[in-house]
């Protein structure tokens, strides 16, 4: 694909990147704030010989995704909060079946029907498996329209590398905002060929079965440990994060996605005023950069977690920090008008430095 600079919404960047990554099949059901993705793909996928299918529900969409993924094709669905909840059963099956797919959550606020404003309330759901059973999905958290493009392409590679669903966790702000981005192809991530497992018709070879049901003696335990080996490999090989102004910090702000973007401005202003503040932005939410947080906690006394929720990722920061440092939290859960400003986060940084906030890890 020719590299071009484009000015478009985050949602469109995801849809365009899916086609650039070789995704031929999309199944989904419209929901705000991600409907630009199916709208774009309904027009463009048929033009590249692909299939766009609007299902009767998210439950149907995820099972169609499962079926198409089983053939070894690159497949994607997208939804938001309530729709992603409906998909959880299918995602669990896909993890058990070891099927690669990209699932985009342009999240909105909840619980329940909640609202359509930007939120990070789906962090636990995305990073802890979401559905039933012993499994994980890899989670990528973009914080710009360029990353909506880049990470979508990476997500297809990673899904194929691990034969596992990969979730892109964005939100209404990243989906709806426009920014220039370059239609570049990121460094490809090598993945094994699919011809050893894909269901392509058994002509000239024995038939194959893709399933998640294991009833034999010790059979399921063995399968779960095999899945777990992949999650351990993800931790070793594909934990990603960004460090911003992290030289000799007195306090580390930890934030992902939209919150990280707003926090970056606050950190920059605080640095300009002479405060030793830096930002750690997890890019993969699973696997989580615990190790880097641990290293930092050996030198830094204070960690301030900023999220667009009432406190979810802060638990991962606490795991990384252990008992070495103090963890503080600032959250603005969902709802119209509740997006924090850089000034607000700046004030929280200063309050934390002046010991005016209570740490959340002092029990």
């Amino acid at each position, binding site marked *: 694909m020719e590299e071009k600079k484009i*000015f478009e919404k985050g949602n469109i960047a995801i849809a365009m990147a899916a086609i650039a990554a070789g995704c031929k099949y999309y199944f989904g059901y419209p929901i705000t704030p991600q409907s630009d993705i199916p709208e774009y793909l309904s027009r463009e996928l048929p033009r590249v010989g692909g299939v766009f299918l609007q299902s009767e529900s998210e439950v149907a969409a995820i099972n169609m995704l499962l079926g198409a993924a089983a053939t070894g094709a690159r497949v994607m669905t997208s939804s938001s909060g309530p729709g992603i909840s409906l998909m959880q059963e299918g995602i669990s099956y896909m993890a058990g079946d070891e099927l690669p797919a990209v699932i985009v959550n342009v999240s909105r606020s909840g619980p329940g029907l909640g609202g359509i404003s930007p939120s990070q309330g789906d962090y636990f759901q995305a990073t802890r498996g979401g559905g039933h059973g012993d499994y994980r999905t890899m989670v990528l958290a973009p914080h710009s329209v360029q990353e909506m493009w880049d990470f979508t392409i990476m997500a297809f590679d990673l899904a194929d590398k691990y034969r596992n669903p990969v979730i892109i966790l964005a939100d209404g702000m990243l989906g*709806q*905002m426009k*920014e*220039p981005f370059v239609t570049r192809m990121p460094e490809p991530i090598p993945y094994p060929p699919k011809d050893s497992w894909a269901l392509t018709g058994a002509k000239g070879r024995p038939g194959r079965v893709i399933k998640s049901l294991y009833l034999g003696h010790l059979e399921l335990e063995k399968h779960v440990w095999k899945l777990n080996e992949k999650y351990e490999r993800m931790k070793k090989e594909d934990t990603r994060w960004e460090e911003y102004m992290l030289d000799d910090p007195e306090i580390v702000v930890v934030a992902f996605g939209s919150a990280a*973007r*707003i926090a970056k*401005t606050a950190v*920059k202003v605080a640095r300009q005023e002479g405060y030793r503040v830096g930002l750690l932005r997890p890019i993969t939410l699973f696997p989580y950069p615990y190790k880097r947080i641990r290293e930092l906690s050996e030198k830094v006394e204070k960690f301030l977690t900023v999220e667009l929720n009432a406190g979810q990722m802060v638990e991962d920061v606490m795991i990384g920090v252990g008992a070495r440092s103090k963890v503080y939290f600032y959250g603005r859960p969902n709802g119209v008008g509740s997006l924090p*400003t850089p000034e607000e986060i700046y004030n929280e940084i200063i309050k934390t430095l002046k010991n005016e906030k209570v740490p959340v890890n002092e029990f």
Partner: protein
Amino acid sequence: MYYEVFIAGAGGQGVLLMGNIISYYAMLNDLNTTFMPSYGVEMRGGMTHCTVIISDEEIGSPVLQEVDNVVIMSPFASQFTTMVKNGGILILNSSLVKSHQCEKENVTILKQPFNDLALKAGNSKITNMIALGYLWGVTKPLPFDEKLLQQAMLGILGESKKKFIPSNIEAFIEGYQLGEREKI
């Protein structure tokens, strides 16, 4: 280099188009830019606004609490006069916005009857482009270059609407000249 503007009005007035063109123009100048829209569920008439930021550095939050430059195109959106910073510029479409309240300090308030100006030119659909030109003339986000503006309009409107670009440029220039004459 840093510039920010908040434009608000009613759906159908072309408020988002104004913001889109500024952002696209900034991209053509190799600058970073964000365009953050908000609109109601209605096809027309709902409250609509957008925030545009341009910078030569990485842009943090695309949403702002207070903004240097604010344009209000409709009385429907007059609540957003509070978005302007102390010392900022507030532009009102006086064809429709008949009264306003703004408690910020040292704000330069400029009123222009954009709808009337467009009607006088014989095309009510260019109201937003006169307003955009005026905003540009007053606040000068970037040097005005007609060829680049053409390219930006084409980028946003697409080939199918290319034929409307000359009349839109003309309207922009009318507004621009009006804006340049403002002494602030």
